[in-house]
C-alpha cells in the first residue's frame, strides 16, 4: 500500500498546526504584515491525484524554514510560510495567490506543480507585482518572454529554480540517442504538459540527429481510472521505446496496469520523465528497475557538502530520500533569503531585481538565472535501480547533461518552440 505513512505524517502536521494556525489566520484577518517577519506564500497541489508533490514540497520548505529561523532568520526576521492548495486548478491557484498577496500580505510567492496552472498564473504575478519562484511546473512558456511564441507568458516577475521541460527533453533526446530504439511512442496526460513533452522530445531528437521515428501517441485524461485500453493501443503499435510524462497517482496506476499487460516485456525501453518525482519512496507500484527516468535534482549528484547534508538531514527526519519537489521548495526559501538580504528589504521590485541574473548554489549545485529567468540547471537522466541501503529506487548509473542554453537553442533551430532558458 502506498502513501500510508505520508498521509498520516501529513495529518499529524496538520493537527500540530491547529493551534498556531488559528493565530496566523487571525493575524491575516487583521491585515497582518508586521515588520517582524518575512512572510512568503506557497501554492502547491495538496489534494487530489498529485497531492504527494505538495506534501514533499511542504517537507522541503519546512526544513528550510526551521534552518533559516534557527540561524538568525532573514536579516534578523523570522520567515513564515503560508501554504495553500491549488487543487491542480488554474482558477483556484489564481484565487489563492490573490488571497495570499492581498489578505496575508506576503512578500513573495513560490510553488506550482502543474504546467497548465503555471501558464495561467504567470500573467497574474505581473499584474499583482509580486515575485513568483516556480519550483516544479516545467512548461518552457513561463520562462519564454511574451511574444516569443504564441503561448509564451514569461515576464519580469516569474522565475523558475528547477529545470524546465525543454532542458529535460534535451537530456531525454540524448538518452534516446544511446538506446537501440528507432520507433518511439508516448502516453501522456491530456493537457499542456503531455503534449509539450512529446513536441519537445521529437524536435530535440530531430535537432540532435537522433535516428528516431514517432509512431504512436495516446493522451488519456488526467485521473483516468483504467489505462488498459490506452496501454493496449500503444502495445498494438509495437514501438521499440516509449517516453511517458504521466505523474502523480496517474503514474502509479499506469505502472501497475502496464505491468499486468506485459508492457515491460514487450517495450524495450520506457523513459519516465517525471518518474522520480514521487516514486523514490513509493512502494505501491514503483518504477521497474532497468527503465530510464529523469529528475530535476538527484540526492547523490553533485557530491557536494550542500547536497550531502541536505540529503542526510532530510532522510533523518522523513526516512526517505528527498524528491526534487522537496529540494525545489527548500531552495526557494534560500533564494528569497539571499535576495531580501542583499536588497535590504522586502520591496517586491527590489527582490525581482535581485533574482534577475542571480548566481546561486544549493543542493542541486551551482547555477544562475538566465536572462529569461530560468535556472541554468542540468538535465539528469539515469537508469532506475533499487538501492538496498536507502530502501528506495535511485538513478544508477546517472547521466548529467549540461543544458547549455546556446546548444539547446541550436538544437531547436528548425523548430518554432522556445527553449525557455
Amino acid at each position, binding site marked *: 500500500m502506498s502513501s500510508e505513512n505520508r498521509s498520516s505524517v501529513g495529518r499529524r502536521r*496538520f493537527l500540530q498546526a491547529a493551534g498556531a494556525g488559528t493565530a496566523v489566520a487571525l493575524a491575516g484577518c487583521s491585515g497582518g504584515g508586521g515588520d517582524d517577519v518575512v512572510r512568503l506564500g506557497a501554492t502547491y497541489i495538496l489534494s487530489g491525484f498529485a497531492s504527494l508533490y505538495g506534501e514533499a514540497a511542504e517537507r522541503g520548505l519546512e526544513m528550510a524554514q526551521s534552518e533559516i529561523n534557527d540561524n538568525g532568520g532573514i536579516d534578523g526576521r523570522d520567515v513564515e510560510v503560508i501554504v495553500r*492548495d491549488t487543487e491542480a486548478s*488554474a482558477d483556484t491557484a489564481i484565487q489563492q495567490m490573490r488571497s495570499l498577496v492581498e489578505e496575508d500580505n506576503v512578500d513573495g510567492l513560490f510553488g506550482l506543480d502543474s504546467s497548465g496552472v503555471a501558464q495561467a498564473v504567470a500573467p497574474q504575478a505581473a499584474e499583482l507585482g509580486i515575485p513568483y519562484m516556480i519550483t516544479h511546473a516545467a512548461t518552457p512558456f513561463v520562462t519564454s518572454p511574451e511574444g516569443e511564441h504564441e503561448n509564451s507568458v514569461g515576464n519580469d516577475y516569474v522565475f523558475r529554480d528547477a529545470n524546465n521541460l525543454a532542458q529535460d527533453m534535451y537530456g531525454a533526446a540524448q538518452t534516446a540517442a544511446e538506446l537501440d530504439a528507432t520507433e518511439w511512442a508516448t502516453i501522456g496526460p491530456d493537457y499542456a504538459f503531455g503534449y509539450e513533452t512529446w513536441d519537445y522530445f521529437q524536435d530535440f531528437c530531430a535537432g540532435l540527429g537522433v535516428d528516431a521515428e514517432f509512431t504512436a501517441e495516446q493522451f488519456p485524461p488526467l485521473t483516468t481510472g483504467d489505462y488498459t485500453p490506452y496501454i493496449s493501443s500503444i502495445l498494438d503499435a509495437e514501438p521499440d521505446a516509449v517516453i511517458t510524462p504521466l505523474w502523480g497517482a496517474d503514474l502509479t496506476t499506469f505502472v501497475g496496469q502496464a505491468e499486468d499487460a506485459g508492457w515491460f516485456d514487450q517495450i524495450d525501453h520506457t523513459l519516465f520523465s517525471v518518474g522520480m518525482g514521487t516514486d523514490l519512496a513509493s512502494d505501491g507500484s514503483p518504477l521497474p528497475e532497468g527503465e530510464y527516468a529523469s529528475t530535476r535534482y538527484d540526492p547523490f549528484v553533485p557530491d557536494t557538502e550542500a547536497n550531502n547534508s541536505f540529503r542526510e538531514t532530510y532522510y533523518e527526519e522523513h526516512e526517505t530520500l528527498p524528491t526534487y519537489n522537496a529540494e525545489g521548495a527548500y531552495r526557494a526559501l534560500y533564494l528569497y533569503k539571499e535576495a531580501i538580504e542583499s536588497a535590504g528589504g522586502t520591496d517586491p521590485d527590489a527582490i525581482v531585481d535581485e533574482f534577475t541574473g542571480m548566481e546561486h548554489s544549493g543542493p542541486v549545485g551551482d547555477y544562475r538565472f538566465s536572462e529569461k529567468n530560468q535556472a541554468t540547471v542540468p538535465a539528469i537522466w539515469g537508469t532506475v535501480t533499487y538501492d538496498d541501503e536507502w530502501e528506495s529506487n535511485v538513478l544508477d548509473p546517472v547521466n548529467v547533461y549540461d543544458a547549455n542554453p546556446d546548444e539547446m537553442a541550436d538544437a531547436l533551430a528548425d523548430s518554432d518552440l522556445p527553449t525557455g532558458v
Partner: protein
Amino acid sequence: MSATDTGGRVRKFGSAVADGWTRERFGLLGALGLVLLAFGPSFQIYLFTDFLVVALFALGFNLLYGYTGLLSFGHGLFYAGGAYGLAIVLRDLGPVFADVVGSGVAPLVTFVVGGLVGLALVVAVAVPVGWLSVRLEEIYFALITLAFGMIGYSLIIQDPAGLTNGTDGIIVLLGSVDVGGESFRIGARQTYYALTVVVVLAAIYGVWRVVNSPFGTVCKAIRESPDRAAALGIDVRHHRWMTFIISAAIVGIAGVLRAGLASVASPGLTHWSTSAVAVIATVIGGATYFSGPIVGAFIFLYIRWGISRFPTLDAYWELFFGALLIGVVLYFKAGAVGGLLLLRDRLFGEGRAGGDDGPTQGGGGAAEPGSSGDRADDRGDDS
C-alpha cells in the same frame, strides 16, 4: 401596554421600522453600501465581486428550479459557455478589433463583443438543449441536463475543434483602455467591481420583471400543478422551454463575468460539481423566494471564505455545506430567507402586510415562489 413591556417596545420599534424604512430607503442604503465597498480592502472587493457573479449564476438556475420545478444539474454548461465565448473572442479577435477601432479602446470593444458572443453562444446552445430537456421531468430532467453538461465538459477538455485549449483552459486578459491620455485596466479590482455591479443589478432586475410578468405567473402555475395548468390550456412544455432559455442566458451572463474575474476560462466550469454550486446556494438560501439564491450565494461564499481563514478547517469546508444542505432540506426547506422572514415576524409581530408569512413547512416546499421576501406581493401590475 406598559412602558416596561419589552414585547410592546419591540413591536413599536418594528412598526417604526416598517413604516419608516421604505423600500426606497433600503435601496438607497444598499446603493451606498455598494459604493462604499469600492473603497474597501482590495481582497474584499474581489470577494464581493465573486459573490455577485455566483449570485447571478444561482438566480438564473433558480428561475428554472424555483419557478417551474425543474432541477438542472447541468447549468455549468451555460456558465462555461459565457466564459469561453468571451475568452475565445479575446484570444482570437483582440488584434482584429485593435486594427478596426484603434488600440486605445480596442480592449473595451473586445470585452463587450466577447460578452455578447458568449451570451449568443449560450442561447444558441440552450435553444436545442432546452427543447430536448423539457421533454423530461423530475429525476429524468436532472439526469439529462447532467449529461448535457458533461458532454460540454468532454468536448471542452478534448477540444476536437481546436478552440478551447483542452484541460488547461484559456487565459483571459482584459487589457487596458487608453482614451485621451487616460488609461485604465478593465480588470482592475474597482473597475471590474463597478462593471459587475451594474451588469448583475441589471440582470437581477430583468429576472425580476420576468418573474412578475404574466409569463412568470404562468410559470408558477406550472410549478404548482403542471396538469392543472395544461387543463387551462397552457402549453406547459413551451413555457418550460422558454424559461430554460432565459435561465441559461442569465447563467451565461454570469459566466462572462466569471471569466473576466477569474482571469481564466477553465473546463471545470462545465463539470457537474460546478453546476452543484448553484444547487447548494439556492437550496440553502431558499428556492421558493426570489432572493433565495442571492442570499444563499452570500452564505456560501462568505462562510467558505471564513473557513478558509482557518487552515485546519479549510480542507474540510465541503463537510459543512453537506451537513447544511441536508439540514435545510430535511427540516427547513424555506432556507435562509425563510428563516430571516420568520425571525422578522417573531420580532415585529405577525400578520403585517399580506404575503409576508413564511411558506408552509415541509410538504416539499409547496410555497409559491416570490410570494414572500422582497415584497413580491407588489406584482399586481401584471394583469
